[in-house]
């Protein structure tokens, strides 16, 4: 188990290095920050001075090495546009992102599981079909469009929820629901499919035949085996929620990492982009690591396979 964990950890670190290097190279080739900051008629001397003070006159690889060295100490540089520490900017936004992604995750997992189970209970009934239809719909409707429509209905028409921004928990409802919907749809179907599959497998029949109570069958055998694919999927979905939330964040003016990153890309504020990508990637890698370890705990066979 130790070597398994260690192996996974090293892999995670190399992945992070890869991501940061990729971002660095793309950012570096996408434009000169000095042209961003300086006024158009700034003299060559003023520009050179600025370039030097930003450390941009060094070779690329050395810049990268310095960046990584500082990043390990929590220093992600200073934003070219807002002249504020990138780590401070991220610290301001990260809790909002986590709040939104967390709420959406809880919603999607909770309601998704509940609906999936309902479908299993009332299999082939009207309810099953309605839920199945809705769960497909949730996956095919573009989230940003749905967000706009929800704002129009709940915030403008009925005035029951705030339009946008962050604040008390009522601000969270619309963006969280909008963000959760596609995941919710997928979870519902996954839970339904997984449970059905497990319930018709041989060993459940055996368990029933052995005279175990249905409760033992469901919770002891079926749930555990239906859980495995769910854990992987849930991990992927959580990473997805954090990483892809920014269209929703834009629609609802939710001050999260994603929106900041997109703004930074458009403003060529490269250090901010780099910082955001690194944090999001780190989150994703961590989640995957957790999933892998969890998986290994649930299913010991995995340990041997890696």
């Amino acid at each position: 188990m130790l070597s398994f964990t260690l192996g996974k950890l090293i892999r995670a670190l190399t992945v992070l290095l890869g991501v940061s290097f990729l971002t660095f190279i793309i950012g570096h080739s996408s434009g000169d920050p000095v042209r961003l900051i300086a006024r158009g008629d700034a003299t060559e001397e003023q520009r050179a001075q600025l370039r030097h003070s930003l450390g941009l006159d060094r070779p690329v690889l050395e810049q990268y090495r310095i960046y990584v060295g500082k990043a390990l100490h929590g220093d992600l540089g200073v934003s070219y546009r807002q002249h504020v520490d990138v780590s401070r900017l991220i610290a301001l936004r990260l809790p909002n992102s986590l709040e939104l992604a967390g709420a959406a995750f809880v919603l999607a997992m909770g309601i998704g599981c509940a609906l999936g189970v309902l479908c299993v209970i009332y299999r082939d009934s009207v309810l099953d079909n309605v839920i199945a239809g809705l769960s497909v719909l949730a996956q095919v409707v573009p989230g940003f469009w749905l967000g706009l429509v929800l704002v129009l209905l709940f915030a403008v028409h009925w005035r029951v929820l705030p339009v946008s921004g962050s604040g008390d928990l009522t601000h969270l409802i619309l963006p969280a629901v909008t963000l959760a919907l596609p995941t919710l749809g997928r979870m519902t179907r996954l839970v339904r499919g997984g449970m059905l599959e497990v319930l018709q497998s041989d060993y459940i029949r055996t368990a029933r035949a052995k005279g175990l109570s249905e409760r033992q069958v469901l919770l002891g055998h079926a749930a555990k085996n239906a859980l495995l694919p769910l854990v992987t999927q849930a991990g992927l979905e959580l990473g997805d929620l954090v990483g892809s939330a920014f269209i929703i964040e834009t629609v609802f003016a939710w001050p999260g990492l994603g929106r900041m990153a997109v703004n930074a890309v458009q403003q060529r504020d490269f250090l901010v982009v780099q910082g955001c990508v690194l944090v999001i990637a780190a989150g994703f890698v961590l989640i995957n690591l957790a999933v892998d370890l969890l998986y290994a705990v649930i299913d010991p066979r995995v340990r041997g396979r890696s």
Partner: protein
Amino acid sequence: MSFWARLIRCPPARRGLVMLLVMAVVALAAPLLAPADPWKVHPAARLLPPLSRSAVDGADALGRGANASGNGTNASGPGADASGNGANASGNAHTGAGATTLHLLGTDSVGRDVLSRLIYGSRVSLTVGFAAMVLSALFGSLIGVVSGYFGGIVESLTGWLVDVQLSFPFLLLAIFLLGALGGGTLAVILILALATWVNYARIVRAQVLSIKNQGYVEAAHATGASVGRVLFVHILPNTLAPICVVASFSMAQAILTEAGLSFLGVGLDPSTPSWGTMLNDGRDYLLTAWWISTMPGIAIGFTVLGVMLFGEGLRELLDPRSLR
């Protein structure tokens, strides 16, 4: 019964296929179906609600007779008129002074016909979705086959690539690269392909691993078949079915992502009639002219639904456990 025959008998797949065929026909026959030129602006006929009529000036479609139609006030058109519209698809031709054009789904913020743009937009969405799907299927499958077949260092390396790609917040990468590449349809296709190849690589690798040691592959090896022959004749065909399933889902994803990118204002040429750009155009008019962004939203939903139902059918038909 062949695989495809069974597929057609499966209701969700059949429904999906019909929906896709409808969209394909619309896309192919766009010039015949569209009641008006989707690019022609008409400043005097802006923001007309569905079922309105606008005057068509004989001399030029810019409608310099500004008073010919009040701005959004002449919402006429009982539903009955609408039916005849598809038949006389002569909107492209100038119909002479005094004639009017019926805007079944209204006009947008510069007076272009929404229905016509929607019809032409299906070309963009389907092309982009399909091309991205094919490209990423080719690339992803190749990576998957190679990594599954050779194993060892190749497998570790491709596995690492997959992990890096998965950890990278993809849409950010897309916006980043589109800024650098300068947008355009081809760039969008390439980037969407880059987004989804991982799915193929994983599935194909798993398939290859399970097939690799089966009798007939080993037999092929024994008879002295080359590695390439083994890969392409004996292994790849057996991975085709799961690739198709992944393909249908990633096409759905590609269509949605293209819309998302256009919604953020990056990607396609701004005047291209694509559903995503239309959604973006309509965003500021949500309160005043809902039809501009609602219609493409429905179109996207419809197409993605078709693709997904088809994929769902495929998946049900194959072993559901091996996928996802």
